[in-house]
């Protein structure tokens, strides 16, 4: 392997497949599905890269990681150096390598995508991050002199963590306020262990603590502390409270026992660890039962695969468009299929029915795709007279989250959009309130980890400017 391949040879090589836990085994276990590339696999995969002069992959990454550079270093076996390249643009590579929708981003833009075998950039990023984590690699050798300035970060999801990470490295004091008892946002309460081991999130957070970031748990801003109080003590405030308001179906029967929002189901299982024997928090028993999940995003896949692991015998994903429009990561869809999850497309719920207040079935309406809507996806519309019914002991609603109004209701002077999200300057993350910045899902609506992280970092840069010049030109 010492001689690099010629371009022609590289084009012929197959993409290295990620080793995975066997589907039958993993359907009973919360252990991570993807096992990680070996050193040899990572190097071989990296060697396929064409080292493009104008690397398209970089354009595809929302934070512009110098992918060509880090992949080259992996090919050369310089993993530490590769990590430093990644770290310049991405503070949470072990997480993004696992959960980014790569097929729409970096890998989708890679020139080799045209031939269906883009470089496995996500897998390589994950490899590098896992490698340096296992080696105890220190990214930051020296902390700058404290500036005496302090910043409050509200919410400890990827947006808040990234913002905190940049600010602490610039010498500002940073306190993160989190409403729940555990930091990490969706990374800990939503995305399940089998996809993102919580130990990885914990390591990132411990890293921030080592740098001096203070975390205050059980701190609901708007209740435990007001925004005004934070502004009185800190020089700036970053709001990264996510989009944590679950939508329900708006059809009869949605409050029957057995109907969960994905947030509730996943929170009970992940954050409250209801899947472990002896857990204090209950979750409705799904063993041997029939489960339906409404939705087609990552949340729906996570709910379905979690139900499977909790012992459900039949798990169906009911989606009102077709597979093509499903926003879920392609890998999750494949994994779900392999785990025996059934997909029913072009169906929408019209009602949930039950006996004695307990869910028994869902009533469905057949749909077909009509004209594209404002999101560009073809709008599903009912097919007259085509209805059906499916047995369901549990229904999980995973059709998205709106902006949680808890904090915003306490600051009516803050400008919001018609979707209830915070209105900000896209570049600077500045809100209508001087000294207050925002980013992540609370600005964009439910999006992705990498976008939230990127927004947190942009806001951190803009907070620097504000702390320096004190000029608020929104």
């Amino acid at each position, binding site marked *: 392997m010492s001689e690099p391949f010629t371009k022609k040879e590289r084009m012929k090589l197959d993409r290295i497949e990620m080793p995975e836990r066997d589907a039958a085994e993993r359907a*009973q*276990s*919360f*252990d991570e599905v993807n096992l990680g590339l070996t050193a040899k696999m990572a190097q071989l995969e990296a060697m396929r890269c064409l080292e493009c002069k104008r690397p398209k992959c970089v354009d595809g990454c929302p934070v512009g990681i110098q992918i060509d550079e880090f992949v080259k270093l992996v090919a050369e076996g310089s993993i530490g150096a590769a990590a430093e390249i990644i770290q310049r643009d991405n503070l949470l590579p072990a997480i993004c390598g696992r959960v980014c929708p790569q097929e729409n981003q970096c890998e989708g833009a890679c020139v080799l995508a045209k031939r269906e075998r883009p470089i496995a950039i996500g897998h390589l990023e994950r490899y590098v991050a896992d490698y340096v984590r296992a080696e105890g690699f220190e990214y930051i050798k020296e902390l700058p002199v404290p500036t005496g300035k302090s910043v409050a970060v509200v919410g400890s999801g990827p947006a808040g963590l990234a913002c905190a990470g940049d600010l602490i490295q610039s010498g500002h004091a940073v306190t993160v306020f*989190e*409403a*729940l*008892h*555990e*930091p990490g946002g969706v990374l*800990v*309460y939503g995305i399940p*262990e089998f996809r993102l081991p*919580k*130990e990885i*999130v*914990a390591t990132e*957070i*411990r890293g921030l*603590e080592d740098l001096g970031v203070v*975390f*205050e*748990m*059980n*701190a*609901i801003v708007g*209740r*435990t*502390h007001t925004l005004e109080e934070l502004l009185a003590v800190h020089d700036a405030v970053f709001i990264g409270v996510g989009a*944590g*308001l*679950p939508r*329900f179906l708006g059809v009869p029967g*949605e*409050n029957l*026992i057995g109907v*969960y*929002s994905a*947030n*509730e189901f996943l*929170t*009970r299982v992940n954050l*409250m*660890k209801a*899947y*472990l*024997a002896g857990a*204090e*928090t*209950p979750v*409705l*028993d799904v*063993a041997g039962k029939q489960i339906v999940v409404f939705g087609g995003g990552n949340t729906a896949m996570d709910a379905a695969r979690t139900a499977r692991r*909790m*012992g459900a015998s039949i798990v169906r994903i009911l989606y009102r468009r077709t597979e093509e429009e499903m926003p879920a990561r392609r890998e999750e869809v494949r994994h779900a299929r392999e785990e025996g999850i059934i997909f029913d497309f072009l169906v929408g719920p019209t009602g949930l029915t039950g006996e*004695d*207040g307990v869910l028994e079935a869902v009533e469905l309406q057949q749909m077909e795709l009509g004209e594209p809507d404002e999101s560009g996806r073809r709008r599903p519309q009912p097919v007259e007279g085509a209805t059906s019914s499916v047995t369901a002991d549990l229904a999980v609603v995973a059709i998205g989250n709106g902006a*949680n*109004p*808890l904090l915003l209701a306490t600051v009516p002077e803050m400008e919001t959009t018609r979707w209830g999200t915070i209105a900000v300057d896209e570049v600077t993350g500045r809100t209508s309130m001087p000294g207050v910045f925002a980013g992540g899902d609370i600005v964009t609506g439910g999006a992705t980890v990498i976008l939230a992280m990127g927004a947190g970092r942009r806001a951190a840069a803009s907070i620097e400017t504000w702390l320096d010049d004190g000029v608020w030109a929104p």
Partner: protein
Amino acid sequence: MLLSTAFWEWSVGAEVEMHRIADARDTGPGVRRVVVEAPHVAAHYQAGQFVIVRVDDVGERIPLTVAAADPSQGTITLYVQGIGRTTRQLNTLGSGEYLHDVAGPLGKPSEIERYGTAVVVGGGVGTAIAYPVVRALVAAGNRVVAITGGRSREYVILEDELKATGADVVVCTDDGSYGKAGFVTEALADILATESINIVFAAGPVPMMRAVAEVTRPAGIPTVASLNPIMVDGTGMCGGCRVEVGGETKFACVDGPEFDAHLVDFDLLARRNQAYLDFERVRNAELDESSCRAGTES
């Protein structure tokens, strides 16, 4: 199910400020008054709000009403009825011990105005929810009648505290062992028959709140019930606390917990509160067993 128990051991590390119990004492069979340090909650608390508590670092999150707050001491007072695993575990703790998490204050504060004459009905541990409402109503210049009831004399809580607010206090016991014999709703009906009442607040078991709503419905007296659905986060994130009010779905933790009692679907609330009955039975039985064992060993 195959379990990776090592998962228990991951801890996200962030230092959690524990909440010291300043004082804890029994106020009746299975009911304990717990004063706990939670300075930020104490500083922001308003009548009608609650906290979410976890006893230890693997514990369930449960909602408990803040009965009183002392901002100068940085403490809040909870009244806890030991009905299940978590509440019973909490009630074994004494002064100097700790609660792992106390988050709040959550929920909308009670709407306290100068209504005129108000009746506040508290059943059982619901009296703890009613008590701060009584105090706030008195402070706002209302004439307040507080009706509190329990199964028998020992179950009556907060009687002295209620009297100290300046409200007229009517105590009822189901068995007649103390105060008036009969249910709180009978005492309420008696008052409605003799006085004109502007508003009624009710807090307690679901059947009691439903009965109160039926007593006040014919005369159309505005009635507020403090609902107690099962909660998880208490911040509007999970929707587990859904209730139906006037045919609309509401999240009790952020839209409530107080709602117009005449519009609440109490059947739904009662049913949803039973969702985990089997699980709770098992966990409770385990607790009984372990406390029995502990009993015989000592």
